[in-house]
């Protein structure tokens, strides 16, 4: 074909591709042969559709701007008080599985049996309802089955939601996303920053825990009051991060002479000056933020 074509050929191709040379006129059809007032999809009908679409979009945006999407607190697998709740369009199934004969011993009926039959019937509706009649009031069986199912779904959803509200009331709980929003609003009104639930909670730990000074701390019975991990107990404060509060000189002073009328005893007798110095140097390095 790349060699050109003779005029007797019925199909004329463009170059050597399989695209046929187009010689039909580009005229849109009129719809006079169709019954009723038919119109073209583009642009006549699509234009109207877009206008409806714009109205819908504006309405939707107004809704979205007025109502922020909910967000609760970060997932906490140890939270035993949380009442699980699926999205609203699963509630009918969620509620359904709470009834006897479709739960526990009969759970098979609840998860596979009845939903399987219902969704299966819906999926295969055209093969079950094979009559030619299309008007719903002339198909009483199909229409009433669908009607009943709809009523049942609405009922189950409403009951499930009611039950949830009731449970919240009993437990004195407010849904987390509402509580969170409320707290954010209160903080904003008080001029404070919004509570942040996303800060990484870094476990504070000892800096240079293997330092020989730790042995001094053990020998001198520091651990007796400040706990074995030096996190403090009772009135004895945590020594982790003590370097943020006290300088080395202040630490030497505290260890040597004690503090708070003997609440923190003096170690003048039990430790040498060098040991106190070593211990204080180490403790002054105990800062929460790594340098």
């Amino acid at each position: 074909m790349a060699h050109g074509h003779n005029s007797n050929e019925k199909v004329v191709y463009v170059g050597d591709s399989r695209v046929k040379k187009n010689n039909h006129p580009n005229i849109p059809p009129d719809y006079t042969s169709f019954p009723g007032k038919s119109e073209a999809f583009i642009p006549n009908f699509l234009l109207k559709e877009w206008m409806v679409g714009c109205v819908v979009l504006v309405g939707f945006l107004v809704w979205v701007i007025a109502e922020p999407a909910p967000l609760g607190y970060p997932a906490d697998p140890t939270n035993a008080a949380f009442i699980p709740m699926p999205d609203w369009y699963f509630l009918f199934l969620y509620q359904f599985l709470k009834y006897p004969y479709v739960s526990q011993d009969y759970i098979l009926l609840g998860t596979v049996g009845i939903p399987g039959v219902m969704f299966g019937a819906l999926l295969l509706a055209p093969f079950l309802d094979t009559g030619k009649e299309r008007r719903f009031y002339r198909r009483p069986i199909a229409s009433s089955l669908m009607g009943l199912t709809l009523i049942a779904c609405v009922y189950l959803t409403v009951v499930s939601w009611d039950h949830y509200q009731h449970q919240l009331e009993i437990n004195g709980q407010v849904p987390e996303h509402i509580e969170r929003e409320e707290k954010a609003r209160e903080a904003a009104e008080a001029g404070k920053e919004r509570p942040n639930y996303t800060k990484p909670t870094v476990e504070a730990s000892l800096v240079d825990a293997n330092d020989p000074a730790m042995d001094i701390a053990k020998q001198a019975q520091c651990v007796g009051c400040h706990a074995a991990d030096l996190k403090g107990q009772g009135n004895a404060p945590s020594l982790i991060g003590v370097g943020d509060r006290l300088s080395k000189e202040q630490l030497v002073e505290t260890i040597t002479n004690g503090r708070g009328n003997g609440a923190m005893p003096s170690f003048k007798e039990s430790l040498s000056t060098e040991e106190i110095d070593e211990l204080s140097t180490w403790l002054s390095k105990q800062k929460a933020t790594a340098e």
Partner: protein
Amino acid sequence: MFKSVYNWIDERLDITPLWRDVADHEVPEHVNPAHHFSAFVYCFGGLTFFITVIQILSGMFLTMYYVPDIINAYASVDYLQHKVAFGQIVRGMHHFGASLVIVMMFLHTLRVFFTGSYKAPREMNWVVGMLIFFIMLGLGFTGYLLPWDNKAYYATKVGVQIAESVPVIGPYLASFLYGGDIVGAQTLTRFFAIHVFFLPGALIAMLAAHFIMIRKQGISGPL
């Protein structure tokens, strides 16, 4: 200029029939709300598609900020919601759009059911439509976990436990969804992948089949 570029392409690829087929198809009187107001029930399918497009677009923008791992997921959603310009609106569109899609799809399904439009020769389109319905529910279920707040976590846990109670395939289904034995790091990445790649891919294929069948068969006639 535009015309000559168009003609140049059209001569080579013959693109006119492609769009002409879509553009010139007739919209009959009985589905046109301009002629019969009650025909608005025929709009629900188009609105479902419209909201689906919103979902795809807003979802694409959300993935610019969302991080699918259990440490950062919540923080990234929090950041998106409060710090990113228009983030609250885009997330709101995706969150509420999900509900709206279900509502519109539900109304569309009811319209098709009660007008008997699923009957021969349109059985296959109904079946494909129902598959779209299930895919949408799957998208709703997998998307619910992604913010990684308590609501997400416990709803997913309950959902997978229900799936687990199915005999024989239940445990396999559960370990496929969990990616282990609990709702955890693997579950979140899995749900993210299913929500963002697997199900949308299936959805687009099904929507294409749905629309091609409608174009082929035309809309069902007046009652």
